[in-house]
């Protein structure tokens, strides 16, 4: 696909190396505008409310949530899976697309990776706070102790712990390593002593020597090689939380690929949401072009279609298996008390991405922006449907129940959105949003 670059410029506006640096630097050097402050205030307030709700939950107990004797996991695990899913796009873009030599990724990988890290932070919060005894959560780590108790390696929840921490660490290192050359550039341009020291510390003494570049390339590729399988493994393991259980609607072998596709699907949608706002507010239209948006939309069609096929396969297997509980679980999803959630999911995830087959829609910024939100709403509902509708009516009808979130649960979710946007806003203010060094390589190619 390298002929892409000959078909259309990756970045527009006939930039030379200096203008690129100037453009990317503007938000770091200039005083942030009022919009940024307003956004930060809003996001930080949401984060604060979320943190208060979390503290309340830990103090008073999970009883503050709407989960009950039948539905043990509600919004918390829904949000966990949703955030982990979102956290897939960054590493997918930087690692897998790097390995596939997709040059267009250079404009977006920095922010996508940052988004990944923030999303994984939000995701990781939920398994921690959903525990009844948060303060004893460390029991889940296999540490040597005098009581001779050990963790249970049969449990998918334990696999989660390893999968997510590994993913988080590798993503963080990968992102940071990628930042080093740009941090060196930032350091050089900083005027005040404090800022200079700050960026000098962060840039690890980067000088831009050939030796540095060589090592940088080796480390980048090695990490990409490590990160690439993680993109697939994390959500595979998250899906095991459900797939290895006995609950109809959970106990499905299709879950790993279906979850990974869904994760990339929602991750790209979130990248689009953020970048469409960022390119507009930070005047980066030349770097994040319609071309980029279109390419991402194509990935959305692909992954969205995989998700759609998975949904239909599930339905088919429910019928084909001949298991009454399985069949009931899916009939209940579509026609039971939570039918609306199922149909929101179907509409948002299966029908709407198909509109991207139209080139005009694919290249419309506004339409893409709306779609990116629709898809993430749909993907949130997918997890809600899987978790809540499977649990609320399982084997014994005597235990069938309904689940409704409480305000606290909603606020915790809003809080993680707040944490996510706070971190993202700080990121765009203090770090180069576009990987300058890498973008510059694309224009050299010309």
């Amino acid at each position, binding site marked *: 696909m390298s002929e892409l670059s000959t078909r259309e410029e990756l970045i527009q506006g006939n930039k030379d190396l200096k203008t690129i640096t100037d453009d990317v630097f503007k938000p770091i050097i200039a005083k942030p505008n009022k919009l940024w402050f307003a956004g930060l205030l809003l996001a930080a307030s949401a984060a604060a409310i979320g943190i208060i709700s979390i503290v309340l939950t830990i103090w008073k107990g999970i*009883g503050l949530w709407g989960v009950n*004797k039948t539905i043990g996991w509600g919004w918390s695990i829904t949000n966990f899976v949703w955030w982990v899913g979102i956290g897939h796009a960054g590493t997918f873009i930087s690692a897998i697309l790097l390995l596939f030599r997709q040059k267009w990724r250079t404009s977006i990988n920095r922010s996508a990776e940052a988004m990944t890290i923030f999303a994984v932070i939000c995701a990781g919060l939920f398994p921690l706070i*959903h525990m*009844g*005894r948060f303060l004893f959560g460390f029991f889940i780590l296999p540490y040597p102790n005098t009581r001779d108790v050990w963790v249970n390696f049969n*449990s998918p929840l334990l696999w989660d712990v390893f999968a997510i921490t590994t993913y988080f660490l590798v993503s963080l290192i990968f992102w940071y390593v990628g930042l080093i050359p740009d941090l060196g550039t930032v350091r050089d341009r900083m005027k005040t002593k404090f800022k200079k020291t700050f960026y000098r510390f962060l840039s690890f003494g980067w000088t831009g020597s050939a030796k540095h570049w060589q090592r940088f390339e080796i480390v980048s590729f090695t990490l990409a090689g490590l990160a690439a399988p993680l993109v697939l493994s994390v959500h595979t393991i998250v899906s095991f939380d459900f797939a290895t259980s006995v609950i109809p609607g959970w106990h499905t072998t299709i879950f790993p690929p279906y979850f990974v596709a869904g994760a990339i699907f929602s991750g790209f949608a979130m990248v689009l949401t953020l970048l469409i706002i960022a390119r507009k507010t930070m005047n980066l239209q030349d770097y994040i072009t319609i071309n980029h948006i279109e390419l991402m939309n194509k990935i959305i069609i692909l992954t969205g279609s995989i998700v759609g096929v998975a949904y239909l396969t599930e339905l088919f297997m429910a019928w084909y298996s001949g298991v009454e509980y399985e069949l009931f679980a899916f009939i209940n999803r579509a026609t039971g008390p939570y039918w609306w959630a199922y149909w929101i999911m179907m509409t948002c995830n299966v029908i709407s991405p198909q509109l991207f087959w139209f080139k005009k829609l694919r290249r419309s910024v506004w339409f893409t922006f709306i779609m990116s939100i629709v898809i993430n709403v749909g993907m949130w509902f997918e997890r809600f449907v899987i978790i809540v509708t499977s649990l609320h009516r399982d084997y014994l*009808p*005597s235990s069938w129940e309904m689940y409704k979130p409480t305000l606290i649960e909603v606020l915790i979710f809003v809080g993680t959105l707040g944490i996510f946007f706070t971190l993202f806003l700080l990121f765009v203010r203090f770090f180069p949003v576009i990987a300058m060094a890498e973008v510059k390589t694309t224009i050299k190619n010309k």
Partner: protein
Amino acid sequence: MTKYWKSLDGNSIQNKEEKVEKKSPTNRRDFLKTFGFGLASTFILSRCENAAHKAIPYLIKPEEVTPSMANYYASSFFDGDKFNSILVKVLDGRPIKIEGNDLSGISQGATNSIAQASILSLYDDTRYRKPKIDGVNTDWTTTDKQIIDQLKKIKKEKGKIAIVSPTIISPSTKKVITDFIKEYPTTEHITYDSISAAGLLDANKESFGKRVIPDYRFNKAQLIAGFNADFLGTWLSPVEYTKQYVQNRQVSEDKREMSRHVQIESGMSLTGSNADERIIINPSEEQNLIACLYNYIANKVGEKEITTSKPAQDITKLGDELFKNKGKSIVVCGTNNKETQLIVNGINQLLGNYGKTITFNQSLLTKQADDKQMDGFVNGIDSYQGVIFYDCNPVYDYPASEKVTKALKNIDLSISLSTIPDETSELVKYVCPANNYLESWNDFNPKEGIYTLSQPCIHTIFDTRQEQESLLMWAGIEKEYYQIIKENWKLVVYSKTNRAFDFMGFWNKSLQDGVVELESKSTEPKYKNDLSAVKIIESKSEVELHIYESVNIGSGKHANNPWLQELPDPVSKVTWDNYAAISPALAKERNLKTGDVLKINGLIEIPVLIQPGQAKNTISVALGYGRTVAGKSGKDIGTDVYQLLKTGDYKEYSRDITIEKTLAFKELATTQLHDSMEGRDIVRETTLNKYKEKPSSGNERHKEIEKHHQTLYQEYKYEGHHWAMAVDLNACTGCNTCVAACSIENNVPIVGKEEVKRAHEMHWMRIDRYYAGDPENPEVIRQPVMCQHCDNAPCENVCPVGATNHSSEGINQMAYNRCIGTRYCNNNCPYKVRRFNWLDYNKAEALEGNLYDPHGMTEDLPRMVLNPDVTIRAKGVIEKCSFCVQRIQEKKLKAKLENRELKDGEIQPACQQTCPANAIVFGDLNDKNSKVYKLFKQQRRYHLLEELHTLPSVGYLTKVRNKKNQISNYKSQKPNHG
């Protein structure tokens, strides 16, 4: 003193002092050292304070008390309504559990849930702590002096005094009252039963000349016909009747016979839900229907008929069946209408049931009151100068209570002997609080020839005095009640025995056994056939009200017991409320849904519950709710319907009413929202005819599934014990006593109404109830569900920290301390038996200020009821049925100490121990002679959701219905969810 040298260097004190002086006394280092040490030790020591504030060791240890080893004392429970012979488990000086007394012929080791829960009343925080005069705490001397003065004054003035009480079955108490009357001759003893049986008593007086309740023997009957008599739930002596009933209901491969049960009733009762056939009538149709049945049978034997009109239901089939089972049938009726009971007696006489299934040999004495007496008293209450309320609460549970309320303002001497504040005791001048029954001596004569004792199991907790002592004090008799009982027993009981022991020997044995059953010598009374005076009253009304006694709350006396309030109703599964049960048809007609508030007679407001199987034009409402003065847990729960009872010669428990829908809505706290089995293979059942042919009928799938049993893993061999439980679905009546016993044994927290609404109830076991067939008259299916202790437990492999694991004896166990509360185990449990501590219900939490305890169960006094052998669980951990592992350990240790093998049946979990229906059997599957092993060999045995290959240790035995026609398909019932 001579100073000895230690060494040359230190031989002089002078030297030493000089040395010290040379150094500076404290330098900075020393200061910091001391300061640091001081600070650290202050901190550490301040945390070392032990929390043993109130533990007081024995100075002289009583011989029979070994710390942490329980003692059992035989006693009796009688609340003026139901009688149970019990054993009280006393651990470290605290009574903590009630068990059935297996020496009793009445309850045979079982109890009902009210008796189970009654232990909490001992530790009720709202109990009176001291006597009160005009609502002010005082002491006994002042109170006694004032009361005696007043009594003497009334005696002088020849004023009237009344002692109002429920039926008293204690011979010694009766003697005390007689003695009191001797001292104050103007005293009348008025008795009334809040749930009256006067109609039945008077009918028996007329038919047989004996004003008693005969001994019903359901075990002797092949055909049982019950007319609005909830004999398995609330009627007269339900534990005894359940024990008898199941004897003839349990089938096995060797005994392929069972009785048949037809219930004719208006509301869906516990008994009706167990019937093989259920006929629905409105209460007003009952009398005519019974008369028609009488006529049908009278016609067959050539007796005179009564004038009747056309019956509401076809009774010929029932008549034929009854006639076929002459002498082997039993007809009972729960009405308080004397005429109706006379006809029922007539039917039983025609069928020759007297002397066979109904005898007067050991008549039941728990109800003796005469409604006319109380009615007369209430109407003439203004003429009394003194009233003593003995263990009764007429302001609440007597219909025309406003007269009592008004009169109490003018009566000079009004005394209540209540243990806890109630509606009546709040209005009287003198409150002379009685002891709890577990602090008292007493005797009982529940049935003719059966005498039981109750003994104090703990010293009085408060400054209270048992009722009899108070009466004795006021009558000027200086004798302890204990002495009176003993003397009275020598006269009344001992004289009737064969005198194998001397009296002290007899007394000690009686006290140890708790029960004395004398051989009865009475002859059957002659039946006087006179039904000519009987007039059939027919009334037609649009909507009728049927007032019944709630299985859990009873007459309302125990309303302040949160254990009972949180127990789901055996039929509707509603907790913490009563409701107007209406039929689906009436709901449709009046556009009502569950939770809509209904106004009855413009008087009371009550939420609706759509009850399948309810008579179309009848609304059933339970008594015992709507208390206005009754502690934290009982106050303002539900609606009082005593005020709707009609009084007169006989209290009427049904009447015509008008109903009106209001705009209000009240959500009921229900533990089960879905009523249909959805065609799933959850409860397997068959009919008796099919069972006779093939014992595995209805359970064909079991073999099929067993055939597919295979696994990749090596199967675990249980070398020692392999614990298992068999639940006979044909025996279980769904009475809920096991649920109560389980909660009490295992310190299961009370969460309150709001939490139950949020499906946060904590019960370790539950009784699932499903409906099948026609919603207007469905079949009811019940299934007790507790942790199934799966050998392949889905919960075990998903716990990340291994907090739930499998014992080498097959028990799925929980390590509460290890649990971090991911709730994954509960999600993955197909039976949904795991319970999560959503909030800090138990005060077992490290964090402060987050206690959620709406009913004060964690306060010092109620906390005394906790079983110290079972850990209380902190917020955020999962808990569940443990097969009462503490009982298993106890008996295992006992056997080990005695150097012997465990005996089968020695270990009984709390649920099995108390079950009146013998439906639960626990034991060791590795013991080939054990009862549970034999039951597991029955072809009726299957496992719940066995197709999942979870290999549960709990086995169920299929339900067998004694009916001719096919079992209806389960799919027809429309789901009813909230």
